[in-house]
């Protein structure tokens, strides 16, 4: 399966788990999206531990809008993270899954303890199913230690009367921004 079909499949499967998938053309659009959503939710900070490329622009943007930008030692800010902005290594269309290399502790905290997780997914890294990533995953596992996360939606539970409820421990929302590879 090729692009754009995989993207279509991913979008379709994402809607089933209330993941918002959007296509963006540039890093600038990513930043606007993050700013927009953080403001809308009355958030106060953006945690972006692995955003080297966009960091200057992001820092400027945050500063201009009165948002705290957190990039390291996130453990010290655990209860203050509004939006977590991270990269996703791959996307798996069949299950609308993001594959995020979460080996760095800061990255884990940014994705687990934010209110809203925004992940940037390079367009060319969407595969139809997990089997397609087998080799790559093994290679990553072999370069241990490694903490690899499959994320498919926002944190959910159905433990009270089987009523689906979002945001029990982790993020309440998951947004995926599909970006042209050469914009990275």
């Amino acid at each position, binding site marked *: 399966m090729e692009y754009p079909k995989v993207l279509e499949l991913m979008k379709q499967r994402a809607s089933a788990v209330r993941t918002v998938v959007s296509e963006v053309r540039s890093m600038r659009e990513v930043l606007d999206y993050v700013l927009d959503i953080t403001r809308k939710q009355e958030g106060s900070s953006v945690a972006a531990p692995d955003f080297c490329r966009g960091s200057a622009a992001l820092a400027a943007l945050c500063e201009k809008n009165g948002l705290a930008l957190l990039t390291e030692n996130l453990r010290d800010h655990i209860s203050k993270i509004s939006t977590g902005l991270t990269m996703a290594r791959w996307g798996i269309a069949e299950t609308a899954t993001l594959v995020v290399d979460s*080996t760095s502790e800061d990255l884990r905290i940014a994705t687990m303890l934010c209110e809203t997780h925004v992940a940037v997914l390079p367009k060319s890294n969407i595969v139809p199913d997990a089997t397609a990533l087998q080799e790559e995953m093994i290679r990553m596992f072999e370069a241990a230690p490694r903490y690899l*996360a499959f994320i*498919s939606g926002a944190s959910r*539970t159905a*433990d009270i009367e089987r009523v689906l409820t979002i945001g029990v*421990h982790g993020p309440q929302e998951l947004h995926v921004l599909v970006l042209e590879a050469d914009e990275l």
Partner: protein
Amino acid sequence: MIKTPSDIKEYRKNLKNALGNQFLGTTLDTFASAYPASRENAFAGIDFDALACDIAKAKDEAIPNLEKLLGEFTTKAVRAGVTVHFARTAFEANSMIAQIAKDNQVKRIVKGKSMTAEETFLNSFLEREGYEVTETDLGEWIIQLRGEGPSHMVLPAIHLSRRDVAELFTKVTGEQQDPDDINGMVKVARRELRQKFLEADMGISGANFAISQTGTIGLVTNEGNGRLVTTLPRVHVALIGVDKLVPDLKSALKILTALPRNATGQAISTYVTWITGATECKSAESGRKQMHIVFLDNGRLALSKDPLFAQALRCIRCGACANVCPIYKLVGGHNYGHVYIGAIGLVMTYFYHGLENARAIVKNCLNCQACKKVCPARINLPDLIKAVLRTVYQVEGKKPIRNIMLQKVLADRRLFHFMLRRARFAQKPFAEEGYIRHLPMLFSGEHGFRSLPALAKVPLRDMWERLNPPVENPKYRVALFGGCLIDFVYPEQAEALLRICRGYGVQFEYPMDQTCCGLPAQMMGEKETAREVAIQNLKAVDPARYDYIVTLCASCGSHLKENYIALVAGDSPLAVKVAQLKDKILDFSSFVTRVLGMVPEDFKSAGQKVAYHAPCHLCRGLGVTREPRKLLEISGLEYIKSKDEEVCCGFGGSFSADFPELSAELLRRKLNNAEATGAEVLVTDCPGCVLQLRGGTKKRGGQINVKHIAEVVCDQRKRI
């Protein structure tokens, strides 16, 4: 500490209480009704049977090699900075974990969901050692606060209502909670547990996979608590049963394809976390996590070498065998397992938690096969349950009197049939001697939820010659395998078969030395007796003599076809006969539609409205689902679909004598569903189901008529 009654009387009392719990009844019924559709939806485009075969195969390759896989895993994990422990017993595992806590000056522990930790009762152990342990999965936290065990392997608090939770949370927080604000209560848990995460020094998780190839563990969760447990505290301990070892990522991904789909109808769980080695942890002095993996044996390695029970280790803990179990649905998990719940719980309790906890619950199975059909690891659960039952009898060295009776009577066909004939004239004295209800299909009237049929005036075998004149130049030579109920209670169903087939060139025979198929013996854990009658029947019905062997009883048919192989295993010429028999056995509807190829022109039109009950042993045992429904249509009847058509009617042979209240409840629901269609006749294709359903409707004065499919089809057949 959870308690499971070992005394059947006490157990039945609990069951009665559960039946009276309206919330539980409604919740589990809603869940059971919604589950099949969401499961089917999740598997859309995936060949479930092929996937299950793949998983079973991968597991079967791993199970004999667990020690080797453990060695490989350990090498990789140690290289990545993990300390790997091996615990032979539950106590050893708990002690090791307490020691790790002690060595690391731990005070507070957060836990992710782990059935293995439930198995070892790790929480109470650690609490006794003075640690504060908090479950962080919402459902687990709720039951921990209530001091209960899980009532489902995937949905541990499914037995509780929003009111129960609100009451509990009000107590915990000291603030009034609104039961109708589930979202609000979830947020309470988020807040309370977040604090626990931040304070904890140690996190304990389970794992769904341990991959030898790379020393990776895989955790499947929805809430994300598993990620926090493995990230925030400076020490991480994973407690993993050795049966979770798989050779490679490929096998893990296969299991992952089935697990969430089969468990909750999700394409994938929200978080799947793959951890290889000790990763960064800034709260640890070294900057790196203290990571320990404790592998638990607790009998698994011995199980892996058991020729019969090794397959139980294929279990991927999806919980589906509970989801589809008609009894689970009536009484809930606390009455249907000890720690492990559902069909697999009935099996594993004996091994992990002992005879006392297993002896009552293991009797509580209808052999309806629903669990076997959904199991993604193709575990023959109903068979294993019977094997445990048998073991319980063996270990205790005593059996119910009716087992001994059955053993004696069934071993000798002449005696058995003699007693059946006598029973007709002397039902009373026999009943009083306690004989009659111990015969395979006859029960005393003490359980008055259904009327029992009278024995036929003349058994089928005595009128066979009169009913079955020779056919000239027959096209087919067919043996009828009657079974006890057709022979001695409902010979008219066989008569209907003969009348329907008239003009189609079928020469039927009724091999007179045939006897009970042996399923009742198997159901009661009497394998030797089951084997003896199997051999008698194989001698009586030589498959080489016939083109087909037709049966009107789904239970006999599926027992002959599926279980005889295992019963005569190792007996070389007989095993060949069984294989031949297997190829020739057909149920009534398949014979009439597929072999005789009957068409609408053979039948009158504008027949009655009928509802259909699919016998367990037909739709799952023999896998026949289309033919009977097609036959109803061909024969001009107006077939109306009803709710839960393929759910057991509650007969289950001796089951209905052991657990009359469960049998009665399943029957009540079945009849309600059938009556709701407005049909005049409820049709089924097993005389055991006819006995149950007809007895039930008569008892409650129901309007619906219960008929064997051969009878209704015969009424529609044009006379020739």
